[in-house]
């Protein structure tokens, strides 16, 4: 088997695994009970799924000029998914869209009473 064929098989495997993670993320968004749990499923397995897909692409394209571009895709996805999940989670918590019955402990609500102001960056 030539090197090219091995790389093609590896690329196919990476693409499949990545697609699998994206599928799990989609299933999670449907199945999990509340917004914050869904954010876990929606952001994280999808990021690693994308990383796998991009790795598969790099292996199958085998073109050095696209490597920087593909690395940038993963890097920016990681940077933005952190911020978006934080903003959505923070907004939902402040809006009271949290199912208390699913929480074992809630150390944030216990401590928010003594927050001065409550808005902005404390």
């Amino acid at each position, binding site marked *: 088997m030539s090197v090219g064929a091995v790389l093609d098989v590896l690329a196919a495997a990476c693409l499949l695994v990545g697609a699998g993670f994206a599928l799990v993320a989609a299933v999670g968004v449907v199945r999990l009970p509340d917004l914050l749990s869904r954010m876990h499923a929606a952001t994280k397995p999808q990021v690693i799924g994308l990383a796998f897909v991009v790795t598969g692409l790099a292996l199958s394209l085998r073109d050095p000029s696209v490597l920087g571009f593909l690395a940038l895709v993963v890097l920016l996805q990681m940077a933005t998914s952190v911020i978006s999940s934080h903003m959505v989670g923070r907004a939902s918590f402040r809006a009271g869209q949290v199912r208390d019955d*699913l929480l074992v402990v809630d150390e944030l609500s216990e401590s928010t009473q003594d927050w001065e102001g409550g808005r902005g960056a404390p």
Partner: protein
Amino acid sequence: MSPQVRVRADGSVRPVRYRAVQPFAIFWLTLVWLALWGAVTPMLVVSGVLVAVLACLAFPLPPVKLESRVRPWPLLILALRFALDVVRASLEVSAVVLRRRPVRNAVVAVDLRSSSDFVMTGVAAMLSLVPGSIVVEARRSTHTLYLHVLDVPDAEAVERFRREALAVEDRFLAAFEPLPAPPAGADRDPRTESAR
């Protein structure tokens, strides 16, 4: 960032003016530009620097106070452990999604030991990227992160997560070793002082 202010000659108080064009930002934006073009030619480098300067002038940001020394070997350990954590936790979240048992969560407060904004941002970003935890609130005054953690069956698991989060901070501090704090008053921005 808490607002840093300067006092103008006429007595009015304004936010501190930052130097918008910072060398590291220019370098990084040029790198992004070259990665997008997928080639390195003199023309692309020149145009990249030009676009980077324009972007910095259009969207000025305060400089990041790093105040730490980067150590390569702990940084490598940090990166490898992080990659491992991401893969392991991705599988765990996938398992939680696919099993039938209902999931129990927790909101955990993690008091960071370091008092640096840079460390807090870095640790928060790393904890957020590891599946199973989301930063829902970050309190800057006490350097406390509040994380929503997926699949926490009992109080013992809460403590386990807290230990893991603090271990991430320890590795981060090992990779970005904080410099000794300057004497009081020495860290003032001279431009702020001269504006008085």
